C-alpha cells in the first residue's frame, strides 16, 4: 500500500531521513522534468530540483498536513524557477538549453531508424520552440497540464491563483502553440 505523502512528511518532521528519501524518489523525475522544461537548461534544472527538495526538508515544520503535499512541492519549484528567471533577467542571461546534452540519450530511448529519428527530432524541436516562446505564465500552466498531468485545481493551488485564471491561461497557451505550429505547417502535415 502506498504511504501517503502527508504521512511521509510527518515522519520527516520527526527526523526520519528514510521518509525524505521516499519523497525524493517519488517526485524527483516529475520535479526535474518540470523545471527542465520550464527553464530549458539541463544543468540549472539539476541544481534547482535539488534546491526544491532541500527547501522541503528545511521547511518541514512549516508544512501543514491539511495541504496537498504535491501542490506544495510544486509551489516551491515554481518560486525557485521564478527566482531563476528574475536572476537571469537582472544579469542579462539567456535561457540555455545546452546543445551538448542530448536528453534523449540520457533518457535511454530505444533505437530509432535515422530518417524517422530526424523527423522526430525536427518535430520535437518545433514543439520545444513553440513552448519556450510562450509567455512565462502560459508556459508554466501548459507544462503542468501537458507533461506533469496536474488537474486545473492542482495547478491553481500550486500557482496560488483562481481556477478561472488557470482555465484561461491554458486556453491561451494552446491557442498560441496551435498558431505557432500552424505557422510552421507542422499541424497540417499531422492532420
Amino acid at each position: 500500500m502506498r504511504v501517503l505523502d502527508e504521512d511521509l512528511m510527518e515522519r520527516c518532521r520527526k527526523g526520519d531521513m528514510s521518509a525524505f528519501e521516499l519523497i525524493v524518489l517519488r517526485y524527483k523525475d516529475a520535479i526535474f522534468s518540470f523545471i527542465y522544461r520550464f527553464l530549458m537548461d539541463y544543468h540549472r534544472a539539476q541544481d534547482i530540483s535539488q534546491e526544491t527538495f532541500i527547501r522541503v526538508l528545511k521547511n518541514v515544520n512549516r508544512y501543514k498536513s491539511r495541504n496537498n503535499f504535491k501542490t506544495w512541492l510544486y509551489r516551491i519549484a515554481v518560486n525557485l524557477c521564478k527566482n531563476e528567471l528574475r536572476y537571469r533577467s537582472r544579469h542579462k542571461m539567456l535561457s540555455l538549453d545546452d546543445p551538448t546534452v542530448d536528453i534523449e540519450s540520457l533518457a535511454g530511448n530505444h533505437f530509432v531508424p535515422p530518417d524517422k529519428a530526424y523527423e522526430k527530432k525536427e518535430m520535437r524541436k518545433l514543439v520545444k520552440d513553440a513552448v519556450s516562446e510562450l509567455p512565462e505564465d502560459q508556459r508554466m500552466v501548459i507544462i503542468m497540464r501537458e507533461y506533469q498531468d496536474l488537474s486545473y485545481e492542482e495547478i491553481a493551488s500550486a500557482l496560488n491563483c483562481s481556477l478561472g485564471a488557470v482555465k484561461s491561461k491554458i486556453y491561451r497557451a494552446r491557442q498560441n502553440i496551435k498558431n505557432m505550429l500552424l505557422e510552421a505547417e507542422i499541424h497540417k502535415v499531422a492532420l
Partner: protein
Amino acid sequence: MNCEKIKTQLSAYIDGELSEEHSAFIRKHLADCDSCRYEEQLLHKTSRLLGNWEDVRAPDGFCEALLAKAETVSPLPRRSIIHAVRPLAGPRALIKVVAYGMAILLLCVGVIFFAMPPLKRATMVEPLPTHSESASQIDDTASISEDSPRYTTMAQMKVAGM
C-alpha cells in the same frame, strides 16, 4: 452560447475539466457545428504534438547527491517566540528595537500624563516665571497674592529664590 464562447471552453472540455452538464452541452454543439468541431480537432492535435517532447528524468546520481546535501540541512524550527526573535540579531534590527522602545516609552509617558488628576497636570504644565517676573517677586514679596503663581516644585522655588 455562440461559437466564440464555445471555442474558449474547448480547451477545458478536452481536459475533462467541465461539469457533466456543461460537457454534454458542448458535445451537443460540436455534433452540429463544423467550425467548432474543427477547432476541437486542432486542439487535440496540438495536445498530441506536445507529447512529442521526450520524457525527461532526473539524471543518475541525483538522489545520492541530494541526500548527501540533505545530511547537512536541519529543518527550520517551528514558529515560536525564539523563531520570531531570531531576526532581531542584526545591527539594523537593533535600531528598530531602540525605535520601538522609544515609541513605547513615549506612549507610556503620554498615558501616565493624561491619567493624572487635572489639578496636578495643570501644575506640571504651568510655565516657570521669567527672570524679570521672579526678580520683581523677590523685590516685592508683599505683592504675592492669590493671582501669583504657586511654586509647587523645588525648581520653581529655587528660581524664585525661595
